[in-house]
């Protein structure tokens, strides 16, 4: 039973030899050279699972180069899909099952600790018969190596099987693999068919049919590949859900916020926000401006904002560096602006496609002079959408730039989220062109709050000259000591006022204990999963996740005081304790930890790395255990 006749495949899953094993969650990866369609297969697999009611987290495995040479160790391109019975909030630990289209790309993933002993690897076997001797040799060597590592490698003649149904295996193999995975993990084949039809809708019925045949054939083939099947029981879907990644969520957030202008310059991993907008923005009356560079992008956005249309600019670390001067101007001249920063590895060009949370302090303090601004960090894909809506409102209410920090992990992670119920008041208010009130100055600061109404060009009587120079409440350039002191105080006061409206963050777990793990941004899912595991083992550990970085949410010192130790978990650099020359006094610590120390005057430790990978819950769990053990040793 190697294939079905094209077009005649049965849609019902055949009963496997053994009953499917029920699992709470299951992680698969498809890895290949780039251009083999692994990502499309994985995304479709994720969408099918989400539609079935499973929790899903999908993350692409992206090589840094567009077209790395075939069969190269660092060239792994592909996708990881974690499917669970419950909501899935992160990419998880090691994969359970891997489909690899060649053996070389597995090396890179092994280095990244993506697999464990027992991980099943379905490896394309055609390389054993490759005409090139070195290929055959490499393949054979890899088999030995992988098995020595404990990987459960199964050689599979994927291409050969696929050839019987595909016109062109290069482009068809991915759908064949999708079908195979659907069989192995008991995915609903009808839904898979629907999804394939959706994915290829633009390409026409012939292409849809061809791909559906491939999926069916792969599904049938799956039966003989593995004796074992897995079932990940879904939950009933009670709400309308959407499946999307963080950048798509930001793009939708921009539209839902009523923002009409996004000015950007392409930079990974932020660019795809503009891709989604470029195709969809018109439908809500908005435009993307691809500027000549990042400086121009933010300048353009500020120009639009100044003229009454609060705009958004989207970038990543190197772009932030270039936008620095304008960001300072927006603070100084009190121009509302939504500034989305999708962080990647740094410094410099760093790790363009990889995750890092290394720009927190640059966002907060990276501009010359004092530049108070609101900085918020969504922790989930759902929050990526909602925070943009909030950001626009805050920017206008507080007349300042609002920075929204996400990272490559959120940007490319795909997850089902509840579909938002958009209300009309999410959209920007209409442009106010009524005459400006006589006697009100351009910066008519309320001396208590620092807040002031903002004249917009077109408002008669509101004419003023915005300037980045120190200025009075009349917008007049002023170099005297009092004016600058007042201006700085007014701009800073707004943060204090906004901070008053925030509530203390919720502790995940007990409100007191031995250890509190504090995080921000995309690490939420991993941290809470790790903490939950440790708590299930009886450990006295809780988690706290911060969404507001400037101003910080209130009550942090009180929360921290109820724990014996507080540690941040972050994806940015800190010196390893005990590294040569590193002492308790000179150790450079992670960024949130620095911020929290200054803020609370408490001894806050950090655990961080810059491996360019999302931190796995298992690794955090291990660190929690290690710290708690050390603590027990102390007492």
């Amino acid at each position: 039973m190697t294939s079905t006749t094209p077009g005649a495949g049965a849609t019902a899953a055949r009963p496997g030899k053994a009953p499917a094993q029920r699992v709470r969650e299951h992680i698969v990866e498809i890895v290949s050279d780039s251009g083999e369609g692994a990502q499309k297969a994985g995304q479709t697999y994720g969408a099918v699972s989400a539609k079935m009611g499973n929790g899903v987290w999908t993350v692409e495995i992206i090589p840094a180069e567009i077209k790395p040479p075939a069969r190269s160790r660092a060239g792994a391109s592909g996708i990881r899909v974690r499917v669970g019975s419950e909501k899935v909030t992160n990419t998880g630990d090691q994969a359970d099952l891997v489909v690899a289209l060649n053996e070389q790309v597995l090396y890179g993933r092994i280095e990244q600790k993506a697999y464990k002993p027992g991980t099943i690897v379905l490896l394309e076997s055609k390389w054993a018969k490759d005409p090139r001797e070195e290929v055959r040799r490499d393949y054979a060597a890899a088999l030995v190596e992988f098995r020595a590592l404990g990987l459960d490698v199964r050689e599979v003649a994927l291409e050969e099987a696929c050839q019987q149904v595909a016109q062109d295996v290069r482009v068809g193999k991915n759908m064949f693999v999708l079908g195979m995975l659907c069989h192995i993990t008991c995915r609903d084949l009808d839904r898979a068919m629907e999804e394939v039809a959706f994915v290829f809708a633009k390409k026409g019925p012939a292409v849809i049919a061809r791909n559906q045949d491939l999926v069916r054939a792969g599904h049938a083939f799956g039966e003989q590949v593995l004796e074992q099947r897995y079932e990940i029981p879904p939950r009933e879907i009670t709400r309308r859900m959407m499946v999307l990644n963080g950048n798509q969520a930001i793009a939708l957030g921009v539209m839902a916020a009523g923002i009409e202008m996004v000015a950007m310059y392409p930079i990974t991993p932020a660019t795809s926000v503009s891709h989604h907008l470029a195709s969809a923005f018109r439908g809500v009356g908005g435009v993307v401006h691809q500027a000549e560079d990042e400086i121009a992008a933010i300048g353009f956005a500020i120009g639009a904002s100044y003229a009454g249309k609060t705009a958004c600019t989207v970038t990543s670390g190197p772009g932030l560096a270039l936008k620095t001067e304008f960001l300072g101007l927006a603070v100084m001249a009190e121009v509302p602006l939504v500034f989305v920063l999708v962080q990647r590895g740094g410094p410099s060009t760093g790790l363009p496609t990889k995750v890092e949370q290394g720009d927190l302090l640059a966002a907060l303090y990276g501009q010359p002079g004092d530049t108070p601004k609101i900085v918020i960090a969504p922790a989930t894909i759902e929050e990526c959408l909602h925070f943009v809506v909030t950001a626009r409102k805050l920017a206008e209410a507080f007349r300042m730039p609002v920075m929204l920090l996400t990272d490559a992990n959120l940007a490319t992670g795909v997850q089902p989220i509840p579909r938002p119920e958009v209300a009309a008041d999410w959209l920007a208010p209409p442009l106010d062109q009524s005459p400006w009130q006589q006697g009100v100055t351009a910066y008519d600061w309320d001396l208590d709050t620092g807040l002031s109404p903002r004249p917009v060009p077109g408002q008669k009587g509101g004419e003023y000259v915005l300037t980045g120079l120190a200025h009075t409440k009349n917008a007049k350039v002023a170099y005297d000591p009092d004016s600058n002191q007042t201006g700085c105080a007014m701009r800073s006061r707004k943060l204090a006022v906004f901070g008053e409206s925030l509530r203390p963050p919720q502790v995940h777990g007990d409100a007191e204990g031995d250890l509190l793990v504090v995080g921000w941004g995309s690490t939420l899912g991993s941290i809470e999963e790790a903490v939950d595991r440790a708590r299930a083992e009886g450990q006295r550990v809780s988690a706290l996740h911060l969404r507001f970085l400037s101003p910080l949410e209130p009550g942090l010192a009180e929360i921290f005081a109820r724990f014996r130790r507080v540690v941040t978990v972050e994806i940015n650099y800190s010196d390893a304790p005990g590294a040569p020359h590193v002492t308790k006094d000179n150790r450079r610590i992670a960024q949130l930890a620095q911020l929290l120390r200054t803020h609370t005057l408490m001894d806050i430790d950090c655990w961080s790395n810059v491996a360019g990978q999302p931190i796995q819950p298992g690794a955090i769990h291990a660190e929690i255990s290690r710290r708690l053990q050390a603590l027990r040793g102390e007492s």
Partner: protein
Amino acid sequence: MFGLKDDWELEVPERYFTLEDYEGGTARWCPGCGDLAVLTAVQRICRDEQLPPEKTVCVSGIGCSSRFPHYMKTYGFHGLHGRALPVACGVKSRRPDLTVWVATGDGDCCSIGAGHWVHAIRYNMDMVVMLFDNAIYGLTKNQTSPTSPQGLHTNTHPRGAWLPPLNPTAATLGFANVSFVAQTVDWNPAHLYATLVRAYEHKGLSFVRILQRCPTYTSQVFAEMQKDPSQLLLLTGGDNPELDAATARTFPNQQAHDSRDLAAARRVAEQHEPLPIGVLYRDPERPRYEDFTTVGLGMSDADKLVGLERELDKFSV
């Protein structure tokens, strides 16, 4: 008052703007600074065209000349060194109803902001860009600018500027989608005014290089030219302003010029002695970026919400 008149219309008090409506306080440039002449010319144009001050925005970078918006009683944006053009384009992007004037210096435009210069020309958004070319960094006190003549003694090149200067007019004529390039001098108010009117009237980005005297640092650079009008070549015909006979008579050198001929414009722009003044080039047909950036402007909230639901549908399962 109580009967309905068939020619009833809303009684709008007639607004008439005088020069004073555009005068925003005493300019603090050095006595004899050419910037003043430009300011006066722009204020006159605003008055003559009766531009509502609230609908007029002056955008600038940083430099002596970039103080310009402060001396106008319109809306203004005195931003960052070199970055006037992106801001001005952003203002215009969703507010085509605003009249935009840009004041930029030779350092501002041709050095630190050179990248934006190339691209703003290409965007061709409807605005007047005035390059205040005094061949020096004025505000920061006498450093070489890209337009400083070779050999000019400055604080950064005390033995004389090393390289030949950049020609902003010729350079602009080399940028894609250029639609209007003119050259004038601050010391001939009639030509300055008439040229800026032409620039204002052109729909698209009008780039006007204004040779501007800096009495403090480069008084000698334009002194000869100012004294001896034969060092200038008055371009006539085509899109060139009609000067009154008295003014025209002061130019011994005149040349009929076809401002629709890009190759001719480039040739003329390369000429230095005598230096051509007038409209070198104009093409009213070039695409304007705001025709793209204003798409969807004024869409109702109801329509936006429909559009948004449609987008959400695409991701829904």
